[in-house]
């Protein structure tokens, strides 16, 4: 699975959960500071990503995901 594929799928999830425009979801964007995705929305994003890619993302793993790139890299490495 390419990084681009994961990014596209991930952008759709963030759009669905937090209403962030899909084009705004780029690898270098930070969830809290750039996209205004708060901690509770992040939990929903993580759960949707787990369902979509069959990965297990613990609360600690999720806390380490500061940017979209962090999340995409984790999913690529673990799915």
């Amino acid at each position, binding site marked *: 699975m390419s990084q681009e594929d994961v990014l596209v799928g991930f952008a759709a999830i963030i759009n669905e959960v937090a209403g962030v425009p899909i084009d705004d979801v780029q690898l270098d964007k930070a969830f809290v500071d750039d996209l205004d995705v*708060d*901690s*509770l929305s*992040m*939990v*929903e994003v*993580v*759960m949707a990503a787990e369902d979509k890619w069959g990965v297990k993302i613990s*609360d600690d793993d*999720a806390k380490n995901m500061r940017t979209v790139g962090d999340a995409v890299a984790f999913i690529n490495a673990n799915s």
Partner: protein
Amino acid sequence: MSESVTLSSPTGAQYSQILSVGSYRPSNIVTNAEICTRIDSSDEWIRERSGITERRHASDSDTVVTMATAAANMAIARAGIDPSDIDMVLLATISHPYPTPSAAVEVSELIGARGAAAMDISAACAGFCYGVALANDMIRGGSAKYVVVVGVEKLTDIVNHTDRGTAFIFADGAGAAVIGPSDQPRIAPVVWGGDGSQLQAINMTASSVAFRDDPSLGYPTVTMAGQQVFRWAVTEMAKATKDALEAAGITAEQLDVFIPHQANNRITDALVRALALPESVVVARDIVTTGNTSAASIPLAMDRMLETGEAKSGDTALLIGFGAGLVYAAQVVKLP
């Protein structure tokens, strides 16, 4: 000889029902602005994370017992029963400051139900639904005819008012219900359980004994891993609500009202989505002006909805309480 001795077994009512609800809301309204004088937060942040705009804080004269008594008296008057006919007082709380005697037995005396059995239930935010389930079984099992179930909290006594994660959420109040016999099913089977592997998700900062031995620990207050609780609530509680509907033999389309524990509007939103509730189902949002009152939140929300006309007598309502333990209980009921 002993084999020939036969013991009698009680026969209870075939079914039970919630006959009435009552409530007590402390008069002291506390806005987000006031909360933000003690924590680094804002009105907007609190509204976005929880939906709360204001909550009620008990005054010094409001205790777990006085608030419970006020709510129970209202419910008893509305049920039209004599207090002396009450066989059991079940009181759900985590904030009564005395391990013993129970708040329930003190309340039984104050409501004129001396002689009734009485006990407190420690099931945190699930406490009211635990009480309804127990009352249902007691009435059907023949060990009680009328049961008063109270959910009451003075959480401001056990909250750290400078903790950014909890100070804005928790609040005070009491709700009560009178449960009695019924000629048809008006309380469906409970779906309940617990997960002791998540003790730390909602916990106290210390035990009272540890605090006694080392006062530098500070008076014990509630701590909460908000994201962990949120994740559990929106996954496991979504399953429990579906199981409760199935246990009642109904579908989401047949529901009139959904009254989840008023933990956080964001959890309620997620549960509504997970259940795919039709728009016709009225959803309790009492948290907006009441905050999270743990065991009291469901009867407080139910009473408010009946009072405002959002819900009406005879409506089919899904209740679910969930919280520290973690523990939960859900059941479908007919509103009084």
